[in-house]
């Protein structure tokens, strides 16, 4: 039997909102699947489309930009 698909998701989170939100999710002990790998940026506007392509090209199964 093959293992169930576990996506590896690269997440670009804005330091001031989404990253703070992810921290608050922790303080509130909200549980979610452990598939995110977070890259902190100072603004979601910092995310060059090239970064997204790079993540996908190098093996990420999905990309989340939150800000």
């Amino acid at each position, binding site marked *: 039997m093959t293992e169930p698909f576990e996506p590896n998701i690269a997440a670009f989170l804005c330091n001031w909102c989404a990253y703070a939100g992810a921290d608050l*999710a922790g303080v509130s002990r909200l549980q979610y699947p*452990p598939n995110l790998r977070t890259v902190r940026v*100072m*603004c979601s506007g910092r995310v060059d489309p090239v*970064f997204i392509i790079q*993540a996908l090209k190098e*093996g990420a199964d999905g990309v989340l930009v939150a800000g």
Partner: protein
Amino acid sequence: MEGNAGNFTVTVKKSPRYVDMDKCIACGECAKKCPSKVPDEYNQGLSKRKAIYVPYPQAVPLKYAIDAANCNYFKKGKCRNCEKVCPTKAIRLDDKEEIIRLNVGSVIVTAGFKPFDSSKLLNYQYGKYPNVVTSVEFERLLSAGGPSGGHITRPSDHGEPTKIAWLQCVGSRDLNKCDNPYCSSVCCMYAIKEAMIAKEHIGKGFEPVIFFMDMRTFGKDFEKYYERAKACGVRFIRSKVHTITEIDEAGKLGLKYVTDAGEIKEEIFDMAVLSVGMEPADSVAELAKTFGIELNPYKFVKTSDISPVATSRPGIFTAGVIQGCKDIPQSVMEASAAACCAGSGLASARGSLIRTKEFPPESDVCGESPRIGVFVCNCGTNIGGFADVPAITEYAKTLPNVVYAQENLFSCSQDTQDKLVEIIKEKNLNRIVVAACTPRTHEPLFQETLSNAGLNPYLFEMSNIRNQCTWVHSDNKEKATDKAKDLVRMAVSRATLLEPIPRLSVDVLKHGLVIGGGVAGMTAALSLANQGFPATIVEQTDHLGGAAREIIKTAKGEDIRKFLADIVGQVEKHPDIKVLLNSEVSGASGFVGNFETQVTSESGSQAVKHGVTIIATGGHAADTGEYLYGKHPRVTLWHTLENAPEKLADADTVVFIQCVGSRDDSHPYCSKVCCTSSVMQAIAIKEKHPDMNVFILYRDIRTYGERELLYKEAREKGVIFIRYSLDNKPVVSPDGDKLSVKVFDPILQRTLLIGADYVNLATAIEPADNSRIAEYYKVPLNAEKFFMEAHAKLRPVEFASDGLFICGLAHYPKPLDESIAQAMAAAGRAATVLAKATIDISPMVSQVNTDHCIGCGLCAEICPFGAIVLEEVAGKGYRAKNIPASCKGCGLCASSCPQKTIDMLHFRNQQIEATISAAAISAAA
């Protein structure tokens, strides 16, 4: 409290917390084991908390406290569970009450409000019917952190409601069932907000209905929100519900009300939300006694319109709802205004208590190959209990460039910090990774540790393996460990490429430029000068005073002409204020601390150098072609009649028409001051000519706060208020040499014909033409051409770009007291810049490599802070140039540069790409 302004001694009682703030890491183990459950005040008693608790998840500082009244140990002498399980030994059951004596120059009273107690209103059965809740309780039901996790449930059976009614003015504008004759100012907006959010949460089929008397959406952008709510299907019914009856076992509610046409109706709802008003905090009476300050008849702290944050006692100031009902933006403005006033009194002592921290000299790591140290934190059991910390540490040792790795019990404790400094020196580390909690709270602490070890603070990287790993994956140790390894690998990849960044600071010119010489501008300049900072006022006309020159009295009845004469005199005499009349700003450059503005007058142009800019360009009443204005001499505008009382000598009837070219497509906002102005004018006419007929034709009367008392007084004096709607506006026609006004009265349900001697129109308040000022300083205007502040609630007097501030009518129409408070607030915020000789700037800024720049200007166009400009380079055309003092490090320029020739310090492309490469492949794979 003893003493006088400038030298008060205040005795403060500090209740014991029973938790050592330095040791508590807010892991929550104590609360987990605490046996005592009590109603959670923050959730309005809708859920339970423990006797050891944090009031709410966002609390700052995030530290626990013991509520002794509900703690088993304090009640029965045994338990001590918290003490047993606390991993950092932070519990102090022997903590004692402390008496602290403070020597201060001024005091600011901000004791806040309490919501009206709805159980006083028997006809709404609050407390008896479970599905009748207050708006504050409903707010918690809407919140993701609330008792139902943001899922709205009916309290009777936890089912999802499909029809909810909001009842406005519960405990406000009411002398019949309570003693609160004032309007609470905020309830209309929050009811609309709750209805809109409930609609988003519940979705299709949900019917929100708001029962109201007058819809008071008078703030900036509030009217648009009201219109949007109508378009989204929120139903607004103008009626006061007189009875709520529970009609079945399920707890459904029957609401009875009377329509405009006098018809009695009953509608069935799942829930009723009482939009409760505000009352001053219970502590106000005691505070007033302790501080010797006066209260007004409604027990709010008494202030005047011309000194809106000064109490009756010198040196004691106030801000927020303790002074009167208001919303968050106004409270924040008043807070800054109070700080400004307190600062004026303390100007001579400024900086006298400052101590500076000394660090060892920084070692130069350039040219050294990376030697990374990784410190993995257990955070007690917060990380160690849910991930395999030894395995993570061993894994870290295998990563490239890592020369040292160890685990810590608590990385943030003082002894670990000291050890970290030793290890850095001993192992000659030049990059540090700490895998622990979140950089948002702990990065500054560890950066200081690096500074203490002689390393540049930017050679540090944090890996968030608690908040974003073990705390959110506590059910799967293996996966949490895998993720933590990945996060550490990402941090190490990035750390390898980190580089030292030198500190950045700029000198500050201790001088303020104020654009506009109205009340806001003069107040701002005086507030700066009284704090010891010289100011220059640039005024377009040949006189000071602005729009206030037209007005006679404030809402509280204070004489504006006398006030104007006073303040103009003060400004003109002040040695530190320079007034440039008949002058205009014709250009500007520079950034926080170092602006240079061109001021042009008939006699030529001069450059003014200044550290901050306060924009107070004001506003004016809009012109109109409606209702025969300009065509008939008896149709007047705003203050014309008031300023020519002789016209009324033989008049019988005056009609005021509100919202002329306002709250419509031409000006889609409420001008906030017109209802109060017309009501005050009507009262003045009635006082002088009690037999004269005075009509006010209105859409909603928006006499918010204590201005409601004026509305009541006008009605008592016989002023007749007739409501009209936008689709059935009054018609004014000539009648001989007088006028005839036709209007439909919705209460009488018939059309009235009023013969009038005068018709006075209240048109919208428009801003001055601000387009050039906006362009010179690169600050935004909204759709209505008012200046747009950085954040409507939290930064109401600042622009997103540093060193630029806004106040008065240029921000939005507002009465004199609010203009003054906002001007003081702007000066108070500006003083935080001017008070420093140099300002430290975050060095995480953009860097332009001009070799590859083609001068396209996209970066300058896109920068929200004006931090990139195009500069002409001889023989090459234009090149981008960054202004570090204005840069916020967002990186918009870098990601949009087609040449990829802009990079961000500390967030370089290369550094981000290294993190991405490390993230893309999982350690487990």
